[in-house]
């Protein structure tokens, strides 16, 4: 009779860590919370002390390619350095802390991509990845970006006029609003898998514009910045940019634009309607309930002493071009 003797050092099937758990080990440790010290852990200031659990091998950088476009006129205000624009992002799909998207989105796959234009239109169509760069004339637009959190940047976007896309779709008389939707792909977007990482918001992220806002020449669909295609943390491969509204309106990584009759639901408005309105026009006279919107910190070069607080302008300084859209509306109520 064969007696199978096992050595103490032999592993049993039950001793083997499931591959899924093994592959996600860093995330699991991160998600344990560390008595809430997560914020401490993730700032680079503490990195040297707490590096034990950190992932110190950054994944390969997302590959950006150079774009051909019509350059914009020089802008009077100093541009935010590219390095800051691509490392300071609110894109909760890749983590709710601003440094996280640049770290967690580098493996994001944007090709193949499909942007579906649908709803109340005569000519619904789909833009595949290559179409995003070839269907419309690409031009540079240097815009101020004002976040609802009262900081701002100046970014040289590359994109095409949203109005051109609308015209191509030939909206019907019923089309009063545009409903935008971000990709929903929890496999690729860790914030959609994990409520803590994703800041507790429901996905997919939704935004909307009124038809006349979408037709305004300032509104663009951006596919690039600083001369190159968008990196994932800034909304690759295609995002909306509406510079007279708070940044959260400029939805990222868009997969759907649906023309609709009624005002569509929007993510931050669903979450806290008293704090974030559908219009979300930059307005120094209407404070966020928890902070002032009268001024902002402009992010440019330099360290902590170089932060410049400047007055916030109505419609982020684009009043001449857009104030007419809101004639007769009470912007204190319709914030």
């Amino acid at each position, binding site marked *: 009779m064969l007696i199978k003797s096992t050595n103490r050092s032999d592993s049993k099937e039950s001793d083997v860590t499931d591959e899924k758990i093994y592959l996600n080990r860093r995330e699991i440790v991160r998600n344990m919370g560390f008595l809430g010290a997560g914020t*401490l852990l993730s700032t680079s*200031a503490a990195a040297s002390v707490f590096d034990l659990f950190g992932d110190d091998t950054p994944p390969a950088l997302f590959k950006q390619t150079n774009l051909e476009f019509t350059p914009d006129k020089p802008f009077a205000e100093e541009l935010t350095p590219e390095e*800051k624009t691509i490392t*300071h992002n609110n894109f909760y799909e890749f983590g709710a802390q601003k*440094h996280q998207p640049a770290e967690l989105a580098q493996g994001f796959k944007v090709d193949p991509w499909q942007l579906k234009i649908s709803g109340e239109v005569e000519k619904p169509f789909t833009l595949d990845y290559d179409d995003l760069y070839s269907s419309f004339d690409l031009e540079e637009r240097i815009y101020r970006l004002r976040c609802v959190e009262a900081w701002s940047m100046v970014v040289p976007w590359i994109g095409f006029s949203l109005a051109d896309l609308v015209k191509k779709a030939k909206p019907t008389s019923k089309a009063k609003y545009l409903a935008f939707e971000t990709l929903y792909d929890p496999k690729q977007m860790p914030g959609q898998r994990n409520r803590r990482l994703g800041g507790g918001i429901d996905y997919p992220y939704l935004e909307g514009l009124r038809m006349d806002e979408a037709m305004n020449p300032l509104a663009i669909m951006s596919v690039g910045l600083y001369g190159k295609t968008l990196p994932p943390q800034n909304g690759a491969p295609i995002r909306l940019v509406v510079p007279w509204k708070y940044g959260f309106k400029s939805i990222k990584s868009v997969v759907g634009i649906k023309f609709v009759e009624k005002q569509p639901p929007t993510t931050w408005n669903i979450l806290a309607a008293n704090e974030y309105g559908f219009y979300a026009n930059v307005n120094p006279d209407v404070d966020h309930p*928890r902070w002032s919107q009268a*001024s902002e910190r402009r*992010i440019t070069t330099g360290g*902590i*002493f170089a932060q410049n607080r400047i007055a916030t302008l109505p419609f982020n300084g684009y009043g001449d071009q857009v104030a007419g859209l809101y004639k007769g509306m009470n912007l204190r109520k319709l914030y």
Partner: protein
Amino acid sequence: MAIAVSQKAIPYLKALVHITALYPLVNLYYQAISDRLGADPVEVVIHFTGIGALNLLLISLLISPAAKFFKIGALIQFRRMIGLYAFVYALCHILNFLSFEVQFDLQLFIDEVFERPYITVGMTAFLLLTALAVTSIAKIRRKMKKNWQTLHNFTYLIALLGVVHFYWSVKSEIIEPLIYVGLYAILMGFRHQKVQGWRKKRPQ
């Protein structure tokens, strides 16, 4: 079994606590000044010192239950310094807000403190904490006699206000603040007898 810590070791352990508390702060400002804290160092220094103050406050509340449970009497000798470091971090938190966020716009600073409930709550906690820090000086403590303990029981309120301030300050990321709510509840749970004692004393 009680764990005895040699009195000789205490100064070395205290030095260790000083280094552990100060190093992150020094490193933080060094990186902030040399522009190595990402695109918006202002946000980082504000959050880091705020969370740091709250962590230290909760650690200070953990000391007496831990000393009792593990029977390490020497732990109590570290409570004051940890409480004072909570104050130092809170002071930095507010100075960061004043100097780097509102950039010495005093009118804006005052408006924000009075108009924004979460800042009002945070400032209330800071003023109370300042009172505790000042009265932690041994001479004053002796003069205050029994009143000292009454005043220093406010540390439970301060920690609660700190947790509320954190919860109220976030946009939607409530999980981390909720962890702090839980930790606070546990720390107060250790003291349920003391809290019930206050209730009974109150005239009906």
